[in-house]
């Protein structure tokens, strides 16, 4: 235990920097991925024939090993090999791949009666989407987002293999030096981060869905 502590103290500034990089890579990709997945998921739900191709495509992206995606990004984007943007974009792609289906399923989980009533009250199509359909899908979308967040946090560490410095550097160091301490420390920090992401999303969903709590308490 004290060894972990000592190691942390000794490498304080490195670890802080790496943690920060991990947070913004995983978090930024999560937000960007969600923003892209929302219209795609809407499309898949609104025009049902687009659902199978979109969801299949998303599934395919998800099966590409992360290291392959990280390595090919500079070629696709024309960025420098060591640019963290490569990692950010690759993680965004994973998030989109995961969230398109979640958003589409969330939107289609809203009951037909509710949608018919909204139309009958005189909501325009857009008002209906933003004021009724989207809010009601928040629990489903939130659940998907939690999975994507944890997945992103753990995927970030793979980026060490393409030279982007973040918490994964602890694992590289550990294996290079044959030392257990940095690896254990890395695992702990990654887990805490994943947990923190999860908690933030959970709290956000709770705040946005007071009706769910009221019903559960019944």
């Amino acid at each position: 235990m004290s060894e972990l502590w000592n190691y942390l103290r000794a490498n304080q500034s490195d670890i802080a920097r790496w943690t920060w990089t991990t947070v913004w890579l995983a978090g930024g990709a999560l937000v960007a991925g969600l923003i892209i997945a929302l219209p795609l998921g809407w499309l898949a739900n609104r025009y049902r024939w687009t659902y199978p191709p979109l969801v299949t495509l998303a599934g395919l992206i998800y099966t590409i090993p992360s290291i392959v995606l990280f390595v090919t990004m500079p070629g696709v984007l024309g960025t420098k090999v060591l640019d963290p943007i490569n990692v950010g974009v690759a993680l965004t792609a994973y998030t989109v791949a995961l969230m398109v289906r979640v958003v589409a399923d969330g939107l289609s989980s809203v009951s037909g009666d509710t949608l018919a009533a909204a139309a009958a009250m005189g909501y325009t199509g857009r008002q209906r989407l933003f004021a009724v359909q989207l809010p009601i899908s928040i629990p489903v979308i939130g659940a998907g987002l939690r999975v994507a967040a944890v997945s992103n946090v753990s995927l970030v560490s793979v980026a060490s293999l393409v030279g982007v410095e973040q918490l994964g550097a602890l694992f590289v160091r550990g294996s290079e030096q044959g030392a257990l301490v940095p690896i254990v420390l890395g695992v702990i920090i990654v887990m805490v981060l994943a947990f923190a992401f999860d908690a933030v999303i959970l709290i956000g969903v709770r705040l946005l869905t007071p009706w769910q709590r009221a019903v559960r308490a019944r």
Partner: protein
Amino acid sequence: MIRFESVTKKYPDGTVAVDHLDLVAPSGQITVLVGPSGCGKTTSLRMINRMIDPSSGRIWLDDRDTAKGRPSQLRRGIGYVIQHAGLFPHRTVIDNVATVPLLLGTGRREARAQALELLERVGLPANFADRYPAQLSGGQQQRVGVARALAADPPVMLMDEPFSAVDPVVRAQLQEEFLRLQGELGKTIVFVTHDIDEAIKLGDQVAVMRVGGTLAQLATPAELLSRPADAFVAGFVGRDRGYRALGFAEAGELPLTDEPVVRLGEELSTACDRARDGWTLVVDAESQPQGWLGVRGLAVDAQRGSVTPELLNLGGTLATESGTLREALDAALSSPSGRGVIVHEGGSFAGTVTASEVLARIEARAAGVRHEAESYTADVLAGGSTHNAGSTHNAGAAP
């Protein structure tokens, strides 16, 4: 007034749901669309507020062609209630009710104040305002649905089987309150149901539709029962229609017999003295009938006490003077003494009638109807107009 002008709806898959429908729903009245499943009731209803667009034909709202203008604008002026209420699960009851006023630009505070008033109007306590729909029973949700449809005070209301998902007791209650509310508000209502009894209870006029989306008969409830247009309507209107039709026939001046009564609290011996055929009618201080006292069943020593509510037989129903033949007959048939109790409008005792007296009245009335029917048949045979589509006259309702 809502007017269908040769409206047809053909779905993309080729199903003709509504076929050249001509129909007028008069202002301030309840028009019920009824018919077997799949006959195009919902389709017809949804074409009025353009949730479904007709393939051909026009629908007029007063003198406005509904096809002109934006659908969302049109809908904000038309209340709509659907079967499972379709409340917004993520909004509180009061925000559900305030939906349309908010869409129309009413301030939040004002919209909520109105919504609160409406909740009371549909019989929900104010402390329901902050609940979510899932915290309400089906019947309560349906009331919220009605309140939401009424919130912007639209002149027109469309209701698609609003009461069919609740149990019979609650349904009867909701129907009563609906009629009371309509009595106060006088909206132009199109009401869809597959339940002919509901149609007959609620409709000022009833449109019976058949599968394929055509109109089988448009008539008042009484006319529908007494003169179904064809075998389909007769079958759909169902059994007991002779008896049910009595529910639309005013009893008129029945030959009332006065009856010696006793008040609650009087001596039992007095009650025994006044009994006829072993039964005495008991009233309260306001002369309102409370029940029948069967004096033959009383033990001798019990006759020393006074008349208490526990001793009464409550089996008989009451009919009002201005009521229908059905009520009067039911009062006579259900009375343990065989004498049906008729009360004045205020509830005080007016007199009694026997079943045979009511039947005599029914016979006399039937003779009149037969006579009318003969001349009607003669009319039809002579090529005169049939009395169906578009007519709202009240044939058969007068004694």
